[in-house]
């Protein structure tokens, strides 16, 4: 039996074809996959609401979702929340994202160009995320205190390697034929770099940038949570210590929305800008 036979058979008598060769269902219980995603997300929200409303978990522990949302909205209309929590965090996240992206693409290129350096660094770059970089934060605090500087430095150090590695993958992906095309069109080095080489690597670089955004977010919030006197991470941890449960859940909800929005936005951008189709 050849694959062609199998496919022909599929068209004539469906019953003998194994189910796994058929295309997957478009709908399950009349709902599409996207509808299921929303239904399950909504299900979690409703569950939290019910568990809290029915008193299955004490009010001092869990709030109904509607009250969390109300607390978030109240925070968002509060000027001091912007000044002491939201803005410092967002600034630190954006600054470390930009620093790690720009430096990562450039450093990645420098390392990629020098074969010896690259071979020496490769095993350590691969193992980089096995080491909890966050262990450096106490060191930075002991040296420079709990300012914004150590936080941005930590977040950049943590994020940059993802950019370096993915840009290097991108530079690797440029095939010889692109180089030859550049030569036969007699472009200058500069033109080749900016119009041929770099654009070719862009899809991979974008994967690195997506990770850098998530890692910057993670490390800024974790640092604020652990030792800081401002930022939204500090706000939530402080609310917890004060037993201000509404503030705590309000702050958490705002962070969740920011994190998911950032992830969706960047994934959307990656899929829009990439010329190779979705990279997930």
């Amino acid at each position, binding site marked *: *039996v050849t*694959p062609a036979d*199998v496919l022909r058979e599929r068209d004539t008598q469906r019953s003998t*074809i*194994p189910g*796994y*060769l058929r295309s*997957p*269902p478009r709908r*399950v219980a009349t709902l599409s*996959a*996207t509808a*299921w*995603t929303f239904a*399950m997300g909504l299900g979690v929200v409703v569950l939290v609401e019910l568990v809290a409303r029915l008193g299955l978990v004490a009010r001092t*522990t869990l709030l109904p979702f509607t009250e969390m949302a109300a607390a978030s909205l109240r925070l968002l209309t509060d000027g001091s929340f912007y000044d002491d929590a939201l803005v410092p965090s967002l600034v630190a996240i954006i600054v470390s994202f930009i620093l790690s992206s720009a430096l990562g693409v450039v450093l990645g290129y420098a390392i990629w160009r020098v074969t*010896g350096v*690259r*071979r*020496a660094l*490769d*095993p*350590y*770059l*691969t*193992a980089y*995320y*096995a*080491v*909890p*970089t*966050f*262990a450096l934060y*106490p*060191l930075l605090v*002991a*040296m420079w205190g709990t300012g914004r500087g150590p936080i941005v430095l930590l977040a950049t150090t943590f994020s940059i390697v993802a950019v370096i590695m993915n840009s*290097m*993958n991108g530079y*690797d992906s440029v095939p010889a034929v692109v180089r030859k095309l550049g030569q036969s069109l007699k472009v200058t080095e500069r033109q080749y770099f900016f119009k041929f080489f770099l654009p070719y690597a862009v899809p991979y670089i974008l994967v690195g940038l997506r990770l850098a955004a998530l890692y910057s*977010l*993670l490390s800024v*919030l*974790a640092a604020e*949570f*652990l*030792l800081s006197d401002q930022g939204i*991470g500090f706000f*939530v*941890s402080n609310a917890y210590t004060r037993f201000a449960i509404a503030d*705590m859940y309000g*702050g*958490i909800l705002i*962070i969740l929305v920011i*994190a*998911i929005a*950032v*992830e969706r936005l960047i*994934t959307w951008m990656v899929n829009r800008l990439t010329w190779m189709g979705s990279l*997930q």
Partner: protein
Amino acid sequence: VSAPTAEVTSSRRPSLPGALRTVVLLAATPAVLILAWAATAALVDSSLVAGPWDSTQQMADILTSSRYQESLLDTVQVLAVSYALAVGVGGLIGFALGLSPFWNRAFSPLIQGFYSIPKVTLFPLFLVFLGLGVLTRTSFAFVHGVFPVMIVVMAATANLRLDPIYLKLAASLRMSYGRLVRTILLPAVLPSFLTAARLGFGVTFLGLLLAEMLIGNGGLGEELVRNIHLVRIDRILGQVVLIGLLALIPNALLRLLEVRVTRRMQGDVRG
């Protein structure tokens, strides 16, 4: 990350024997880092930055203290449990969801969404629901590790599940779905599973260390934070190096296993 591109340059100069060259290449990065560290310590006020030698002495000192040994053992135990759970649960769920193209699509955005949340913001919830003990540390580390493992295994399984070669092979052998899964898809996903397991290790360790720093009753994380207030930079540096070594050894072993299995399955290592 692929290495083989670099072979060309060795023809220019008389090359060292292979093994020696590997050692030199491997040692170069740590050597440069240690030199830079020593130079910084020498230039800056030495009470602010401890040099490599001071820190190594401190590290040896720390390691002999029974208090630190207890913390080390504590961390290793919790890490082992939470890592095993993260790999097991993440691998199973990832594989199961990857097998169903429909549910893969339905769950992916939720799992990706949860993965992108900085888990540390949920830490108060762990404290509120699970208390200040081992349970919080274990589950916090688990939650860090399980999603990356799940995502990688899920994507790999989904790719294999829709690969016409495997499906047609199974169909032409008149395999049942169960046999397709057991004899073709499960072995084929093994290399990706090992990659996922390696990636998951670092994240689980990070989660555990964070939890220990935040709770502050036991473990290497607490030891680190304790020294901030004492401003013992030499001690902190010694511990940072120790934690780095602790993370690198399992990572190297996992990488070795991954390379071996992948080579046997595919004849070559990809990615």
